[in-house]
């Protein structure tokens, strides 16, 4: 017994077990991240995983979803998109001003509600003096002359457009777009959210 313990401590088996466990953990994380990226579809900077939460998913997709979007609704119940970059693929930052332009009649189709929420990069809402943490179907959004709608994503209020202003954090941030009971055009992929464009 004492001999066996001595051999264990000197042979390197214990270090090997520890090394194997660390490598196994890293491999699992890398594989789940890679699968997560493979099942993510990104259009105009908005990323969504449509498969998550569905009972028929295989082992890899299940794990990738549990890691990326734990406990997420199935897509037909609620569509979620996240964006971390603007249309020129630069990280979203409160130091800049952005516009989200919906052409006339192109606000997201739904049977429940939609909302757009800015958060810090970890996903937490950030306090702002206007106490406005999301904009959505109930917001009294002003329309442009042609019926289109612009949402102003910036840290400071846009003068003359406060009604359509969504305050964002001062530093780097991300956006979460939720459409509950998404309409047919979202489910079949024909509806796409517009890109996040830097304001001139």
């Amino acid at each position, binding site marked *: 017994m004492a001999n066996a313990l001595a051999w264990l401590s000197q042979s390197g088996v214990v270090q090997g077990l520890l*090394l194997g466990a660390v490598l196994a953990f890293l491999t699992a994380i890398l594989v789940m991240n890679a699968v997560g990226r493979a099942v993510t579809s990104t259009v105009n900077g908005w990323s969504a995983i449509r498969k998550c939460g569905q009972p028929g998913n295989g082992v890899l997709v299940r794990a990738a979803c549990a890691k990326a979007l734990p406990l997420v609704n199935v897509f037909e*119940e609620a569509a979620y998109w996240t964006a971390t970059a603007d249309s020129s693929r630069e990280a979203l930052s409160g130091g800049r001003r952005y516009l989200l332009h919906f052409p006339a009649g192109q606000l997201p189709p739904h049977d429940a509600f939609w909302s757009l929420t800015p958060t810090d990069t970890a996903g937490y809402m950030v306090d702002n003096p206007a106490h406005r943490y999301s904009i959505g179907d109930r917001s009294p959004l002003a329309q442009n002359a042609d019926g289109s709608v612009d949402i102003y994503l910036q840290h400071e209020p846009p003068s003359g457009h406060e009604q359509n202003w969504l305050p964002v954090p001062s530093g780097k941030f991300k956006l979460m777009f939720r459409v509950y009971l998404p309409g047919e055009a979202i489910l079949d992929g024909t509806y796409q959210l517009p890109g996040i464009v830097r304001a001139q």
Partner: protein
Amino acid sequence: MNRLILKYGRPLTAVILAIFAWVIYRRIASGDGIFPLVIAAVIIWALGAPALIYLWPRLTVNGYKRAILKHGFGEGPIPVNTLYAVPGTSSPSNPRGSLMATGADDLLYVGGWLDLSKGPQVLHVPDMAGRYFSVQFTDPSRSSNFAYVGKRATGTKAGDYLLSGPGWKGTVPDGMAEISSPNQSALVIGRVFVEGDSDLPTAYALAKQIQLAPLKQ
């Protein structure tokens, strides 16, 4: 802890791998064999990585199970087969790291842990009068949603739903639809739409009426 790992994951990994590289270098330099070390590492790696991927959904859901049964959402632990309605929507004032902190500000959340090992439970939902709501049932072994009650799945009228575990062979009472759970336990997440601040009391009163009760035999 999770936030620390997220924030310092890469440097921590680099440090750990550097320590291992140094240990292996020392063994080679001092003339000790490294075969036992390498073989042990490869075996654990080859078994461990697939096992972790397979178990990841279960580990994730178990994290929420612990959070519900041990901590709750601000008013203490939530016993099994009890649904707790969080009184407010998500906002920046939620403590960082709490389950509510990354939610939506137009929903009230309801949460609980279902345990069917001692018999079926009945889910009651009140008349939502067209309001959006959903109750999601998540299988803890796969982290997949095996059933929904709510506006999309069942409509917004009041109703009672029988939740039965695997192998239950009773009679479903009249007027109840049966939802068979693939496991004896399941995570339950409810969501009730809040039109705005003035609608919050109405929405909360409805959310509190989404309840579980044992099946009366």
